[in-house]
Structures are given as structure tokens and as C-alpha cells.
């Protein structure tokens, strides 16, 4: 416990000094929201499920920093620690790799909360905060999305041979989850196949947008996230047993 308590503030400080992560988590999501909501305006169309596009992009942009922090920030930090022997150095001082991973996951989650608040703070004076149809479901969707993506981020950080590889794979994963998740074109504008793919990926965006705008229930989305979380947990368990894990 001492290890976790000592390490968490240090991890927070380190992540706060990583400009790539900060830009991706705190600048990119509000910027994209400002641009896309501005481009599509307020005209409801079938592509936006007859919703105000400004409202759609405010809700959708909440999920973007979740994907960025968990699939780009977390795996790069973890893979970098493995690559450079930081995990072994800490282990020699009594901090287990599980504690390091837990500290990184906690810091990532804390940054997700701050990033979400940043998006809302930018939305408030520009497009306004849209009416929330199902608040409890949003909390459930955001929590499930964050947990699943944290697990996937940890699995990626344990699998990638280096920090650069983790960054490359993380970015490759980020864009489909962001774009097909509904952060770019709304799901209503997607063709049949892409729509099916979008429904099967573990993006954090639909779990926020759908209950926020009252589009549909969370059941299917939670089942998809649970499936991915199970895969990620199995991968973590297997990867952590490899001699190269630390």
C-alpha cells in the first residue's frame, strides 16, 4: 500500500510533464468539438438521429480523452517502464509491477475526469451543455468505457516491445475507436458494414452519447464493453506471466 501511495503522485507528476499526452487529452477533444459542432451547426438530420449536431458533438467529445489517455498515454508509459527496466528497478525496491500498473491506471482515470471537465468547460460558453436524458446511464457508460479501455491499455503496455511500438499501436487503435465510435461522423451516417464494425468496437463514445441524447439503451453497449474487458483481462493475465513482462 505504501508503494501505491508513494508512486501515484509521482506518476501524476510524470504524466503531467508529457506534452503528447496532455495535448491529446486536453487540447484535441475540445478543439475537435469546437470545429465539428461549428461545421455541422444545429440542423438536425437523419445522420444525427434527428439530434442537434452541436449537442451530439459536445456529448461525443466527452469520450475522446478517455480513448486518448487509455490507449495512447497509459500503454506508452507502461511499455516505456518495461523497456527501460524501470519496473525492475522499482521491484527491487519493493514496489510490485501490479502496484505500478495500479498507480498508472489510477492516474489515467483521474486525468480522464479532468479531461471530461475540460471538454464541458469549453462547451458551456460555446455550444452549451445539452440536456441529459439518462444521467445514471451516462455514469455507467463512462465508467464501463473507461475501465474497459484502461484494461486494454494495460494489455497493450504489457504486449508492446517498446514505448515507440506502444505509441504506434495505440494511435492505430485510437483513430478507429474515435472515428467509428461516433467521434467523427455520427453512427447514423455510416454504411451497413461500418455500422456493424462500429457496434462491435470498445469505444467509450456510444456509451456516453446514447444515454445523454436518449437515443437508445445501454444494454448492447455494456455487453460489448464487457466482452472486450474479459479479453483484455485474459490477455493481461497471460502477458504478466511472461518473463519479459517486467
Amino acid at each position: 500500500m505504501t508503494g501505491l501511495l508513494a508512486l501515484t503522485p509521482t506518476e501524476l507528476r510524470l504524466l503531467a510533464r508529457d506534452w503528447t499526452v496532455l495535448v491529446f487529452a486536453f487540447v484535441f477533444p475540445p478543439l475537435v468539438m469546437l470545429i465539428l459542432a461549428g461545421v455541422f451547426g444545429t440542423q438536425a438530420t437523419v445522420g444525427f438521429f434527428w439530434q442537434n449536431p452541436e449537442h451530439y458533438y459536445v456529448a461525443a467529445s466527452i469520450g475522446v480523452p478517455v480513448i486518448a489517455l487509455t490507449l495512447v498515454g497509459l500503454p506508452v508509459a507502461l511499455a516505456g517502464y518495461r523497456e527501460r527496466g524501470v519496473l525492475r528497478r522499482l521491484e527491487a525496491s519493493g514496489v510490485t509491477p501490479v502496484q505500478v500498473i495500479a498507480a498508472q491506471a489510477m492516474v489515467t482515470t483521474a486525468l480522464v475526469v479532468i479531461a471530461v471537465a475540460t471538454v464541458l468547460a469549453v462547451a458551456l460558453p460555446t455550444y452549451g451543455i445539452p440536456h441529459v436524458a439518462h444521467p445514471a446511464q451516462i455514469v455507467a457508460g463512462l465508467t464501463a468505457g473507461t475501465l474497459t479501455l484502461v484494461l486494454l491499455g494495460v494489455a497493450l503496455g504489457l504486449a508492446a516491445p517498446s514505448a515507440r511500438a506502444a505509441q504506434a499501436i495505440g494511435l492505430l487503435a485510437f483513430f478507429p475507436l474515435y472515428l467509428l465510435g461516433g467521434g467523427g461522423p455520427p453512427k447514423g451516417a455510416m454504411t451497413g458494414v461500418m455500422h456493424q464494425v462500429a457496434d462491435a468496437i470498445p469505444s467509450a463514445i456510444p456509451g456516453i452519447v446514447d444515454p445523454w441524447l436518449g437515443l437508445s439503451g445501454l444494454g448492447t453497449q455494456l455487453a460489448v464493453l464487457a466482452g472486450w474487458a474479459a479479453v483484455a483481462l485474459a490477455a493481461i493475465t497471460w502477458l504478466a506471466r511472461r518473463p519479459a513482462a517486467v
Partner: protein
Amino acid sequence: MQTTAIEVHDLQKTYGGQPVLDGVTFAVGEREIFGIAGRNGAGKTTTVEILQGLRGRDGGRVEVLGLDPARDRKRLRRLLGSQLQTSALPDRLRVGETLRLFARLAGDRVDWRALAAEWRLEDLLGKPFGTLSGGQRQRLFLALTMVNEPRLVFLDELTQGLDPVARRETWQLIERARDRGTTVVLVTHDMDEAERLCDRVAVLHDGRLVTCGRPVELVTATGTVRVRFSVPTASGVEGLARIPGVGEVAYVGGTAHVTAAPCAVVPLAGELARRSLAPADFTVIRPSLQDAVVSLLNGDQP
């Protein structure tokens, strides 16, 4: 009487069915600087990782400060300091933050600011790890190994890649650690380092312990000496090769070059005196530990 800090008996370890340690046995006394030397892949790092409880063993008995590293890993951690071969710190972590973090992890047993002063890190407290020079990093690593006031420290190739000045400075720091009463296990490729620092050296080869002893003993036991002296004519060296222990004798440009066992030096000098030859430049060149170990690993020794 010196107490034992480490006892290793018949240590066995395999990776993927391949033996990497095979019957290694040695002991390290308290307050000793004990070197572990050998080629790449000899099993040095695996040995020290097993001693620290970072890896499991497949056989044999290991006792470190009276504890079994495999069973008492947590208790042992509190007594050990460690610098691993391939380890680093996050580039953006500052020196002061590093010392504070590791002191906290060790239960705040030492004042990290005092430690910084002791290891001359005060001026570097605000510098990120990634900007430190090789010597500064090693100084920080050594300070970190002392953060829990350990009874025993493991230093794995601590001076690799350092310039000669930083290396000498690091040697002084290691000696200072020993002077504080800490036992030091030093894994090294550098035989100068082993000869200069270590009370005893164990040499591993292909996972087996080839020899273990004081550097001077290893040199004496495994090496030969070279003797050089001036002689007016080649006839002065005739028959010297018949002295027991004398090997090659060569005469080049007025100088005799003789290879001999250390025990043959006095008889050789006596024979020269008997021949009324008393060369003023009679020089005995002792092989270095490196010569002895290389010779040993190449199988040149009896």
C-alpha cells in the same frame, strides 16, 4: 570471526530447458566486496537476481543474510540495496523527486536530503534523470541503493560505459559504502575494477563456477609471470629453461625475456647470480587479473 552474508550451495537454474546455472557454490563474508566476473551469458546477472529474490531457482540452497530469497523476499528487500544491470528511471523524474520517492518506499528510514548531500547530489535535485551524465546517474543509483541503509548491496555492471574519471569516482563511492559497513556484491566485466575493489572474485563460465578467491590468489594460481633483464650475450641465457617452472626463454637485442611460474623467479635470479650475472634491470612483470581470467576462461591454465 567474519560472519557470512551470503551462502550459495549447488545453485541450479534453467531457461527453456537450457541450464544457465549449474552447481554454483560460494559464500560471501560480511563487509566484503565480492566480485562476480565472467563473459556475457555466464550466469552472473541471473545469480544476483536469484540472490535478491527477483528470480526463482530450480535447485540448490541460497541464504542471504540468514534468509531464503525465494521465501523471505519481502523481509530481505528491507535489508538489501540493488542496482540492476538494465534498469533506469523515467527521464522526466527529477533527482530530488527520485530520492524522496525511494526514501518513502523504504519507509523514510533516512533523510533523503542528507543522502543527497552525502552523495554530492544537492546541486542536481531539480534536474530530470534524462539530462544527467553517466557519472551523475551512477551517483544517484548508488545513493538509491543506500536509501534503506542496507546491510548488503548488489551492483550489476555499475561502471559500464563510464569514462575513466567517472569510473574512478564510482569506485571511491563503492569503497565508501563498504567503509560504512555494507557488504557489496559487484558484478563486473572489468577486471581492473575487480582487482582494484574486490576482496574476492568468483569467475563464472557457462553457468559454472570456475574459480573463486582473492585477486592476487587468482593471478598466482592461474597466471605466469614474465621476467625481463639485460644480458651481454645470448650465452648468458643458455640452459635457463631447464630451471623447474621456467617456460619460454628468448633473447632479443641484449634483453632476455623469460616466461616462468611465480615460484621459479627466485631460482632464476639465483642461477643468474651463480653465473655472475647481476642485471640491474631484472624486472618481474606480474600478469593482471584480466590476463589470468582470460587465460582461465580460454582453458590455458592447468
